[in-house]
């Protein structure tokens, strides 16, 4: 990722799903950002909303990018477990556009619900009409949210909006809020077909 080498002095606009997530996080919250990338969300939350917390990231270049911008980051594979972060230690735990690349998706979500009162997840919506169209045309879909060929994709567990909502229900996680983006713009109608990204905030029970 080229943006991992960006100097902290350049304040680039947040990725649209992160900008939306940031609006859902209360002032002064303690935040754990899983798969935090270059730390852009935590950097924004700390500057604009007085939040504190840590990023968790496994990739060397992204860990370095976080240190460069002064975001506290723990180098760790989130699938190795979140036990070190302590139960209920955070107000909000975020996992943006990374759940689909986890091996033990169910375990990750269950652990998220332990570590904070509120979880926020953004996922690519595999049910987007273009994906269906692409498959009808005999091709695996390649899109802005999933810019990979079938042979080099890190994505393992892709879901549609309906799949994911059923999954949350099965894990006894209640949806607090949801939002849908189509190419970075909020949409309301026919999200199952039109959304490229879905964002959920949830809590236990």
């Amino acid at each position, binding site marked *: 990722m080229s943006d991992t080498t960006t100097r902290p002095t350049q304040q680039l606009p947040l990725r649209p799903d992160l900008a939306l997530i940031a609006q859902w996080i209360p002032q002064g919250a303690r935040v754990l950002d899983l798969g935090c990338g270059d730390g852009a969300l935590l950097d924004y939350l700390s500057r604009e909303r007085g939040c504190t917390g*840590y990023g968790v990231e496994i990739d060397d270049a992204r860990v*370095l990018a976080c240190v460069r911008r002064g975001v*506290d980051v723990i180098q760790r594979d989130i699938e190795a477990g979140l036990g070190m972060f*302590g139960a209920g230690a955070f107000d909000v735990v975020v996992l943006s556009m990374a759940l689909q690349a986890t091996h033990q998706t169910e375990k990750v979500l269950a652990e998220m619900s332990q570590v904070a009162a509120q979880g926020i997840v953004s996922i690519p919506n595999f049910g987007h009409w273009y994906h269906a169209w692409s498959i009808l045309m005999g091709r695996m879909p390649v899109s802005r949210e999933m810019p990979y060929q079938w042979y080099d994709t890190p994505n393992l567990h892709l879901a549609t909006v309906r799949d994911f909502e059923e999954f949350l229900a099965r894990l006894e996680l209640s949806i607090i809020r949801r939002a849908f983006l189509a190419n970075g713009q909020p949409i309301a109608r026919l999200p199952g077909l039109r959304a490229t990204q879905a964002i959920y905030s949830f809590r236990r029970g």
Partner: protein
Amino acid sequence: MTASAVEPQRIRFDAPLALSSGASISDYELVYETYGEPNADGSNAVLVCHALNASHHVAGVSSLDPDDIGWWDNMVGPGKPVDTRRFFVIGVNNLGSCFGSTGPMSINPATGKPYGPDFPVVTVEDWVHSQARLADRLGIDRFAAVMGGSLGGMQALAWSTLYPERLRHCVAIASAPRLSAQNIAFNEVARRAILTDPEFHGGRFYDHGVVPSRGLQVARMIGHITYLSDDSMAEKFGRALRDNAERAQPGDYRFTFDVEFEIESYLRYQGEKFARYFDANTYLLITRALDYFDPARHAGGDLSQVLGKAHAAFLIASFTTDWRFAPERSREIVQALLKAGRRVSYAEINAPHGHDAFLLEDPQYHAIIRSYFERIAAECAAGGDRE
């Protein structure tokens, strides 16, 4: 490039220093070096704490010996990750060491003879208190950072809880919150090698004009094994045989207990080199300081309770192939800091060199330290503006 020659300096302390053991030491000296210049408000001082066999000579070329380059010269210096164009860096030789500060080889004022085995057992905390006194004398109220690797990292951790107000950042690399039974076991083997050497003479070998060289050599060989990874040893030496004219064919065994394998030759060389310059009593003292370090001991084993006293922000780093102080040991520190709600970043460096990696150049490792210190330098500059 290294800066011009560095002159070691010396400060004498008259007031007795109470030690963890209950003993005290008065009239002692600390040897130290400094690199770079203090800024106007004195906010750019960095203390570098040394590990088992190192000294105050952290960086640059010693004024006493042009071949003597500091032990962390790849880390500290102009343009290095800890950039001495921005930071005023201090290296100090610990009490009990054999590189100039008062230790077992020094004359005990009470007897007029070397302390030898009578030098009091010192702990990591004792060192930190003595370093704080040095800081007082140098007029440093608060360090921008206290940093160290291995045993040096333990000192940095101890600083963060003993003098919370006196450091803004704590950098502990390839360190551990306490030794494991295995770590202590290796130390004990090393100590037994020294203590049972007939030339040790109960620690009074100076009086006999000898050195327990064989014991020191074995101690160093054992230690050295724990500093390297299995992989790096395999890559560097493998099962390669030492060249020897007595072999009928290259690669033939000689069926002897003399040096056969390259690794044996290397360890013996390291042992012999070490025994020529290191003091046996110091080796005992420093390994014991390692054994005793356990800041959670008086908190029912709860490290987070102890680290909760700290005000500093922490950078913790470990190396994947380090089995002496493995990444799990650093994660214990990180977990305690998380529980205590302290600011912490943790980097787990993928490096092949085992424990020694903290002394070597690795692009990711040095980039992390460099970036972290760039942030500290920016804070120093901001703090200076506010004054």
